[in-house]
């Protein structure tokens, strides 16, 4: 199992134009990996995530993305993602194509992707205009009952990137706590990169907790604090005040750019980013 640096992992596995899912549902958001993609100035990415939040706002505002597959794009509990809004409303810094779904629809699409089935199926999208604006939401008829069901194409990212609590030296990865659709996004991917808080000699026995076995993992990067300002259960809490502060930082294009230049572009790596915020212990 390779244990590259984050810079090496992004350099090697994330190409311009790739379909990339940095999954996470509030918990274990791969912020450090997203920042490294921004530092390496990747372009034309098709970003995928159920709940694009601050790291996607940053990737979009820094011009890394040309398409977004998503189901809810906001700053949770705070309000809008201003960079996402600016891209959709004013095509700044460039146009952003939307492939918009519901949570249930995206969950079904990831499940299908993980199972290498062509589409996901659900009793969903009933009475919603999403069906009229997204031609990728279609329907199938049950061959047994005749019931009409919603169908969405499977999601198979070129690269899925997760942050997790632990990996062992063989590259088995363990996640606990709120895990969203990370398991499905991981198994749907062609390449799976995982940043972890800690690399341990042996993982505790995993009785029903989520483990991604080493042979589905492409590379593991040791990156303590890699989910900050999101949280890693058992390691550090969510910095809710950062999410609140982001509203003002991101509202204005030039404030946003100077913040990104100072803290992300201006930092060599994630340790440097945390130090620049005065958040590093």
């Amino acid at each position, binding site marked *: 199992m390779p244990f590259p640096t984050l810079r090496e992992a992004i350099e090697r596995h994330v190409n311009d134009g790739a379909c990339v899912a940095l999954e996470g549902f509030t918990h274990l958001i791969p912020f450090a990996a997203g920042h490294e993609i921004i530092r390496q100035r990747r372009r034309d990415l098709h970003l995928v995530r159920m709940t694009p939040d601050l790291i996607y706002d940053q990737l979009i505002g820094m011009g890394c993305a040309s398409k977004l597959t998503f189901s809810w794009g906001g700053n949770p*509990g705070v309000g809008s993602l201003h960079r996402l809004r600016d891209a959709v409303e004013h095509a700044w810094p460039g146009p952003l194509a939307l492939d918009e779904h519901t949570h249930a629809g995206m969950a079904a699409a990831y499940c299908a992707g993980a199972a290498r089935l062509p589409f996901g199926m659900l*009793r969903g999208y009933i009475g*919603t*205009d999403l069906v009229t604006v997204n031609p990728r939401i279609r329907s199938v008829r049950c061959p047994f009952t005749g019931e009409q069901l919603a169908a969405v194409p499977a999601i198979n990212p070129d690269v899925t990137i997760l942050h997790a609590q632990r990996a062992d030296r063989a590259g088995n990865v363990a996640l606990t706590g*709120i895990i*969203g659709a990370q398991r499905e996004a991981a198994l749907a991917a062609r390449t799976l990169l995982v940043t972890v808080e800690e690399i341990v000699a042996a993982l505790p026995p995993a009785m029903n907790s989520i483990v991604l076995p080493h042979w589905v993992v492409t590379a593991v990067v040791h990156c303590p604090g890699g989910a900050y300002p999101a949280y890693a259960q058992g*390691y550090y809490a969510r*910095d809710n005040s950062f999410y609140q502060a982001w509203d003002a930082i991101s509202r204005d294009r030039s404030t946003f750019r100077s913040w990104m230049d100072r803290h992300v572009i201006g930092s060599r790596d994630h340790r440097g980013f945390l130090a620049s915020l005065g*958040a590093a212990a």
Partner: protein
Amino acid sequence: MSDWTRDEMMTVVAARLLWNRCVCFVGIGLPSAACNLARLTHAPDIVLIYESGTIGTRPDVLPLSIGDGELAETAACVVPLPDIFSYYLQAGRVDVGFLGAAQIDRHGNLNSTVIGPYDAPTTRLPGAGGAPEIAAHARQTFVMLKANPRSCVPRLDFRTSAGFLDGGTARERSGARGGGPCSVITDFGILTPHAETRELQLSSLFPGATVGEAQAAVGWPLMPAPRVEALPAPSADELVALRALHSRTRAAHSRAVHLPA
């Protein structure tokens, strides 16, 4: 205690609609406050589900996001998100779904996607999230929103989630299995659907609110129900529990975060 705000009254009124042991799919913001107030007062065994995958959670403070660690730490179980939507919501195991929205129309349909045209919006909103399937599958849904002519509109800019669609039996014909929006809690009172037309009517008012105020806040000709109920003001117990919850929440959210060395 006569000194209360309309926000507090909205939360109290929504909490009173919930019953003990009901299974409730919770959204962030006012719904989360209402569900936890119910749990801390008259409904101690309410089962709260947050879409992040936490089932039976009993948070001591309100979460800022739908996936705060507090929700996982105090849950009966934490399951993968696809399980929540397939095995619990779609399977019909949710009694009450709580929704908010930027716009609602007279049949309880909701918009949380865009203001203006989809391809060239004046305001891009966060989008659907779990709402369309909650609206379809929960046995009943409660909607919470502050009413004004921009939020209570004759015609939605975009229909994100189905209420009673075009009214009458349209919802039943759509394949939606849940009962639809049975109460819309606003900052003046509650709207409920007419039994046949399914148009939202004014069915109850907060203390101090009037039919005229309600009609002025709603962008369609709002009909009062044959009998408009006067809702009792928040009790001392309700206010004490709610304010203590908010004060614990403020303290928790301002606590500094320390990363491990």
